[in-house]
């Protein structure tokens, strides 16, 4: 039996219809009330400061849906009125020829004369009123993140009205994090206004918080005429906070260093295969990275509406492009030069020049801009003094991913087994039936392809231009040589530690000097351990 038979039962159907009409009517009525409020407020806003303040109060009191928007416009000084008819307009830049949007119906008007419009200005009292109103609206927001942001704005900026608002809300706040922020806000207030006991209690509450206003309030307290006991406690709390800030500062340096190191590892790891495993000095390695970056650019041009996905498409595409070019280089040039590393160096350097010029001729010598997808930009805020930029985080993860993939390929696949066999003892491997030439081409292709993948990552960090490769080639060689030729783990450790060393040195030596110091360090290190951090052992190393 059907559950619902509207025609057989006219009464509920009619009731439903009535209900809809009623609701429609109510909502129409509500719209009308809102429009009226807006009109009233608008009329007040074009008058003197006192009336403007009334307008703000009116909007807040009636809880108009556009209150927040209008208050922000007022705060930013973007609300104007036309002198002829007192209509309100939103104007981003008050220039002749710019656009003015009608506040009520959103229609656009072109400004013919600047003098026709006048800004709705605020006085200090109104600024306070507006920021307080905005804070209160924020505290009522559904989204806990927006509530937290609202409380954060109140830190160190409380007055009697907002204190009472906070005290009322604190009991009802369901989210612990927001509640803690509220406690902080009130504690800062107590620190400023309270007696000795409240101050001591407040310091206890503030202890260990990293919010900047907390630190400011404690510093201010030290300079005030508070009791010695209070000052001592405040000093202790302040020391604790500074200690924490230093700690997070170190973490941040480490993070920057790791991300720089990941870039170095990505740039160098392809070389670790071609140079390390095969013994081929490929000076065109940088250009293979560049090709990867340009592939990213081309893919983005092909799918301009899917920037987010384009990066994911670019990774395999760049791998293929660079790998094919690499295989072509190996088949065309390098295979004639095995066993003559210095000649290989010259020939591949020639290839790098040709590739650079090719890119210059095809894409123009100017830098191309590669867009960063939305999901890669942004921050992960750990606490107020320490946040992780997402793009760096992705680079680190990507680097580790590529590294693991390479290790798996070399250690767990038949190809990897053959690659290692050929690199350790070519004659023996051939005797065992390994097609060494084929393996050479594939190994070189693998190393080149990884360079292309590195190019995708680099396209997100630096300018994509014909000189992109050149600027990374020396760094890549340094990483591989420092880590020990023929050792992927060495490359990883070397790249990351050089990156961290660079960032640790940077604050007191400056970026350029830090780089020079690292280079000098590597030069000296090679003297001490000519085979790098993790030298290859056995006969193969004696080549």
């Amino acid at each position, binding site marked *: 039996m059907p559950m619902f038979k509207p025609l057989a039962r006219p009464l509920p159907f009619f009731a439903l219809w009535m209900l809809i009409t009623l609701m429609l009517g109510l909502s129409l009525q509500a719209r009308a009330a809102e429009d009226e409020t807006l009109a009233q407020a608008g009329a007040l806003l074009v008058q003197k400061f006192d009336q403007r303040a009334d307008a703000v109060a009116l909007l807040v009191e009636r809880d108009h849906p556009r209150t927040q928007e209008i208050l922000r416009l007022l705060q930013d000084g973007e609300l104007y009125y036309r002198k002829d008819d007192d209509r309100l307009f939103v104007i981003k830049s008050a220039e002749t020829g710019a656009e003015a949007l009608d506040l009520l119906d959103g229609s656009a008007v072109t400004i013919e004369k600047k003098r026709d419009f006048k800004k709705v200005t605020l006085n200090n009292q109104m600024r306070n009123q507006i920021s307080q109103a905005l804070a209160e609206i924020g505290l009522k927001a559904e989204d806990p993140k927006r509530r937290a942001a609202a409380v954060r704005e109140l830190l160190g900026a409380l007055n009697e009205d907002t204190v009472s608002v906070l005290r009322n809300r604190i009991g009802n706040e369901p989210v612990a994090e927001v509640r803690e922020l509220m406690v902080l806000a009130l504690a800062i207030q107590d620190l400023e206004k309270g007696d000795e006991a409240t101050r001591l209690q407040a310091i206890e509450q503030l202890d260990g918080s990293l919010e900047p206003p907390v630190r400011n309030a404690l510093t201010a307290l030290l300079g005030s005429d508070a009791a010695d006991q209070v000052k001592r406690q405040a000093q202790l709390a302040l020391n604790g906070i500074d200690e924490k800030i230093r700690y997070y500062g170190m973490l941040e340096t480490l993070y920057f260093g790791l991300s720089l190191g990941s870039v170095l590892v990505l740039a160098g790891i392809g070389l670790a295969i071609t140079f390390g495993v095969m013994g081929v000095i490929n000076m065109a390695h940088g250009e293979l990275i560049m090709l990867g970056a340009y592939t990213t650019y081309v893919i983005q041009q092909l799918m301009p509406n899917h920037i987010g996905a384009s990066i994911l498409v670019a990774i395999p595409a760049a791998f293929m492009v660079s790998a094919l070019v690499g295989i072509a280089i190996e088949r065309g040039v390098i295979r004639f030069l095995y066993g003559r590393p210095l000649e290989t160096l010259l020939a591949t350097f020639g290839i790098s020049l040709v590739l650079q010029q090719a890119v210059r001729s095809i894409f123009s010598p100017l830098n191309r801009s590669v867009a960063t997808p939305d999901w890669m930009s942004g921050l992960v805020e750990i606490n107020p003094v320490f946040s992780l930029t997402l793009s760096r985080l992705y680079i680190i993860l990507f680097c580790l991913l590529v590294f693991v993939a390479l290790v798996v390929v070399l250690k767990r696949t038949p190809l990897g087994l053959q690659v290692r066999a050929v690199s350790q003892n070519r004659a023996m491997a051939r005797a065992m039936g390994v097609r060494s030439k084929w393996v050479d081409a594939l190994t070189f292709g693998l190393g080149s392809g990884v360079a292309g993948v590195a190019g995708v990552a680099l396209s997100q960090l630096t300018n994509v231009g014909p000189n992109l490769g050149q600027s990374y080639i020396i760094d890549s060689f340094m990483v591989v040589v420092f880590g020990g030729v023929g050792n992927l783990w060495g490359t990883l450790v070397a790249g990351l530690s050089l990156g961290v060393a660079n960032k640790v040195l940077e604050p007191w030596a400056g970026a350029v000097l830090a780089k020079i110091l690292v280079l000098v360090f590597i*030069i000296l290190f090679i003297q001490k351990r000519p085979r790098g951090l993790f030298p290859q052992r056995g006969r193969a190393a004696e080549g």
Partner: protein
Amino acid sequence: MFLMEALKKDRGGQVLLGVLLVLVIAVPLLNLLVPEGHALHVPTYTVTLMGKYLTLALLAVAVDLVWGYLGILTLGHAAFFALGGYAMGMYLMRQIGDRGVYGNPLLPDFMVFLNWDELPWFWLGFDQFWFAALMVLLVPGLLAFVFGALAFRSRVSGVYLSIITQALTYALMLAFYRNEMGFGGNNGLTDFKDILGFDLQADATRIGLFIASALALALGYLLCRVLMVSRLGRVCVAVRDAESRARFLGYRVENVKLGVFTVSAMLAGVAGALYVPQVGIINPNEFSPLNSIEVVVWVAVGGRATLYGAVVGALVINYAKSYFTAELPEIWLFALGGLFVLVTLLLPRGITGLLRRKEASA
């Protein structure tokens, strides 16, 4: 007679020195005596260009000395060249005196611009030509000595050595780009007025510099030739071809390498010192690793371990570079890159190797 002995079997060297002699006599005459507009007139611009090529040829000879005979593929010789150039540039800077833009009698323009009050200590003495000339030899020599002593003692060789020489010149480039270093930062040293009291723009000075370059190349060539036909030269070749064996025979391989490397660096310094007054500027770009590699290519194209091959390679490629970058800038890098590949694949003994083979078969 010692020299005659060294040149007796060296057909290439004889030709080279003969050509240099002809140039030294003919070019000034054709420039000064033949009137402008005449078909045989050599304009001053060309004289300076040729002088510049000769200094680059000297640099190539220095590289051939260590790469051709010792097997050390240096990717950092431009560093020694640039250091010699900077030493000369500093002398020329001091010669400007109060004729700079700011008219400061004591400080070069860029120091005035950086609000420096006094000359840094390492600029002292550079107002004397003899001191600057000494530094042209000493600074590159000392750097090569220290660097080589470290590297050769610890038996860094082959590709590793190549890469750390590259790191060396790269580090120096970064360092010289810094304004705080006191060498003019990005812009380097320029706006030179005169050398030893002679106006740098005058035709006679330019011809003088050209002759000096030709002489330096000839002397440098002879020095290298004499060194390489001597016992030391044979030890060098032994080290190049079988380092361990030479060591087991009791030769101090490190000392041989260190000595020759240092001499080569000094030659490069001289080349740089003669290069700077002719081009009129020295900036950190001269340290760029690319330049060093280019020199190696000149040597490879000309023919390794012949010395005169290096000269031929340097002249041919630099002439081609001047021509192509002016006429067909798009083609130049394709041509240069292609040349590297072709020469290494098809002409392992370079252009002069081709000639020698013809000679042998004829």
